[in-house]
């Protein structure tokens, strides 16, 4: 028998109104503008773009406003909107070696071509509150050097690669189009393109925890941050109707190249191995975590034991998507009245049966005691 239950419409409508009021907060305080979020909460915007898997700073800022700053709820909004848009095609692969650098550091080489460019980073702040920010209205101005940075800077693994000390990174035969997990079901073992796409849209906190686990010994890598670079990269697209590449504008990207300890065999001399991370916006922690887990997931390719979670592609890929994870965890909030009624009846029956089973044994004792 199926019993349909209706009701709750009025309550749901009222909760929408109450949510809107809660979101707005104290009406005596000025409402935050989407452009303010985009400009002043840029790191949160980047996270929402990555986990929502859609680059659009205005939409990500709107999502953050609508979700009261809940990054996962905001990513969910972005994902839902994305499904309403047609896909025009794929870009040419972004050329990070031609990035307009705003930050570029290496923990492996002190004097590398192009230099160590600290850029806008919290790394050298003291993590002391700046109470002046409570006053509002600041107009900081950064100093300018006499000359610009070099137009192109070599990527650190390429420097090592020139000496043959780095695991080569070449496109496979024919430079095939990548797998797209938004359109094809994932199967395991998953190839590197699948893993990188999954991690690029994966939860930063999940990947951070996994990356950390690898460093602490639940996986074999404690690498060097060979290079981290952040800046603007052009996105190019070849429209069918034109047949030549068109520059669509630029996006901010963060790239991390981890240099890991040696691998070698009878045929290949020992060389460093790579872990790679790439993310929209200034997203350094995300890119670093991704690079750590990317290397850990290569365990199979290098013939290493895959004993730990970060080395197991099925575990990582099935649990890194926070919109999916939140959906499954939070669906527990939804009415399960019928399921629970079934459980209730079952437990009552089991208990009744148990009592009935135990009853004949206790009765004679009672009789004996009398």
């Amino acid at each position: 028998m199926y019993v349909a239950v209706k009701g709750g419409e009025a309550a749901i409508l009222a909760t929408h109104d109450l949510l809107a009021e809660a979101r707005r907060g104290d009406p005596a305080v000025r409402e935050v503008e989407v452009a303010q979020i985009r400009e002043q909460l840029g790191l949160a915007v980047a996270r929402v773009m990555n986990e929502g898997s859609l680059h659009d700073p205005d939409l990500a800022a709107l999502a953050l406003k609508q979700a009261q700053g809940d990054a996962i709820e905001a990513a969910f909004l972005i994902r839902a909107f994305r499904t309403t848009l047609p896909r025009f095609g794929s870009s040419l692969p972004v050329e990070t070696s031609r990035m307009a650098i705003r930050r570029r550091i290496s923990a492996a080489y002190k004097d590398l071509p192009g230099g160590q460019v600290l850029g806008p980073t919290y790394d050298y702040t003291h993590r002391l509150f700046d109470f002046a920010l409570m006053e509002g209205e600041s107009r900081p101005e950064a100093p300018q050097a006499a000359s610009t940075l070099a137009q192109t800077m070599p990527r650190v693994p390429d420097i090592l690669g020139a000496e043959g000390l780095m695991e080569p990174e070449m496109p496979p035969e024919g430079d095939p189009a990548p797998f797209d997990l938004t359109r094809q079901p994932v199967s395991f073992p998953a190839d590197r393109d699948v893993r990188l796409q999954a991690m690029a849209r994966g939860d930063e906190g999940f990947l951070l925890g996994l990356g950390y686990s690898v460093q602490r010994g639940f996986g074999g890598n404690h690498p060097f941050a060979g290079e981290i670079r952040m800046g603007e990269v052009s996105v190019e697209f070849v429209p069918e109707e034109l047949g030549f590449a068109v520059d669509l504008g630029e996006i901010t990207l963060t790239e991390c190249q981890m240099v890991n300890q040696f691998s070698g065999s009878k045929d290949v001399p020992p060389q460093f191995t790579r872990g790679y991370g790439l993310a929209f916006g200034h997203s350094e922690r995300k890119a670093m975590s991704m690079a750590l887990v990317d290397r850990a997931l290569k365990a199979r390719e290098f013939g290493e034991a895959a004993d730990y979670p970060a080395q197991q592609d099925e575990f990582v890929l099935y649990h890194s998507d926070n919109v999916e994870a939140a959906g499954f965890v939070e669906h527990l909030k939804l009415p399960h009245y019928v399921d629970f009624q079934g459980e209730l009846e079952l437990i009552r029956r089991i208990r009744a049966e148990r009592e009935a089973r135990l009853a004949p044994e206790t009765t004679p004792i009672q009789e004996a005691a009398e």
Partner: protein
Amino acid sequence: MQSNEPLARRQGHFAVLARAALAEVEAVLADAPAIPPFMVLKQPETGTIMVEGRAGGGGRRFNLGEATMTRCAIRLEDGTLGFSYALGRDTAKAQKAAVLDALLQNEPPEGPMHRAMHRLAERQKQAREEASRKAAATKVEFFTMVRGEG
């Protein structure tokens, strides 16, 4: 293959227009002697493009994530086709940029719209250089402490 100078120039225009604001595109159009009638072949439309990266920067291609983009196509009465493609969702800009693409193809390189495009490109270049000089100010100069005798 014929000379690709006009193609390179047009590609440069696409890049500049993609980075320009609506008001800046309108300002260049204001330098046109007159805007001739045109037909909209493809209404401004917002969709996505899948942004690809390469593992390690130069290896296997992978899908990084999508980005919003907007495109538009128009035709002038003389048959010249104009297109626009840019990241983001600015549909008003898309149509004006497509008209401009067509007009620029018909104008000689020393014409007023080309000059306006050149000024716009210069402003964008200056903004890029300013960002680069600010980054360059954070470049580390290492000093080596020498201890003891050489």
